[in-house]
């Protein structure tokens, strides 16, 4: 197990390790089955060629998959130390077409010393595509034991 994260060791401005993920159609199908969101805008390349929900003739990553990868930044960082998400909110800025490679990251923005076991931090989250354009932003509050 890695060294344990504690509230006392966290500082505003701490950068969390990033997550990088390439997106294939197989990845999308796998997430569709895991989430049970089998909407054709993600799953059917044939349907997307003509319907163009996002104005492009390709399937796109589930918004919920983008959010799941944003929260992976948190779970990688804090969950092995007993951390848990308290709140999460995120905005999806642009679609992530199949074939994209995105990087997900975060930075501690607030410390909330409440009491031992209830202390929490806020983390600003972001996702960039391979061109450096933001595809999503978010904020999570994370309880740190």
């Amino acid at each position, binding site marked *: 197990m890695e060294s344990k994260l504690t509230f006392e060791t966290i500082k505003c401005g701490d950068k969390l390790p990033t997550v990088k993920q390439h997106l294939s159609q197989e990845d999308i*199908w796998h997430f*569709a*089955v895991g989430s*049970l969101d*089998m909407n054709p805008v993600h799953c059917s390349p044939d349907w997307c060629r003509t319907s*163009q929900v996002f104005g492009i003739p390709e399937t796109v990553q589930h918004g919920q998959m983008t959010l799941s*990868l944003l929260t992976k930044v948190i*779970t990688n960082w804090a969950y092995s*130390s007993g951390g848990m*998400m308290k709140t999460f909110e995120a905005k999806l800025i642009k679609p992530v077409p199949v074939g994209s490679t995105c990087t997900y990251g975060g930075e501690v923005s607030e410390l909330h010393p409440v009491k031992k076991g209830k202390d929490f931090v806020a983390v600003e989250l972001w996702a960039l595509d391979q061109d450096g354009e933001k595809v999503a932003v978010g904020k999570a509050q994370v309880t740190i034991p």
Partner: protein
Amino acid sequence: MDYLQEMAKYYTTQKQKEFYHDFLDPKQIDGLEFWDEIQIGEESEIPIKFEVKAEDLKAFAASVPDDNPIFYDEEYARQCGHDGIVAHPLFVTQIRFFLLQGGGHGSWNRTPGARNPGQIIEYYDPIRVGDILTLKLTSYDKWIKRGKYYMRALSQIYDQYGNLKMRYFSTLILPRTKADVLRFLKGEHGLEA
């Protein structure tokens, strides 16, 4: 390409095998609730329940993909301070799609042409293996912005003891009417903006 056959290669759980997969089936479109029909303030207690099995939690985490052992290894998760394998923060996605597959109130999330602009989740109590979850659903808000038709629902998820597990404000941009959805069903673009 038959995408439903391609997806079937990934089924591992009982719920995945029993789920109604075809979001383009014309028969299911008749059961959907459309943006122009949504009544703000309408509440439903969804009659079916979601019994949380380890295979459900593991299948979601694997699909993210996230190989952190806290999602798979009970002993490791306990060593990390959790009380069993952990539910991924977005596991609520699987819960809602499973519970809302029957049509009627809340069926917008199966709408061909729906878009996801962002979400808000508040966590109150961890989801654990063995929980039997129920969903109280409220049509919370709908609005028009830059020609797009938004709707927001509040999902409150409870366990079998009445403990509130989470509150989830889910937002979607939807085709406005059934006629717009039927255009999508034929593979045509059906959004006004």
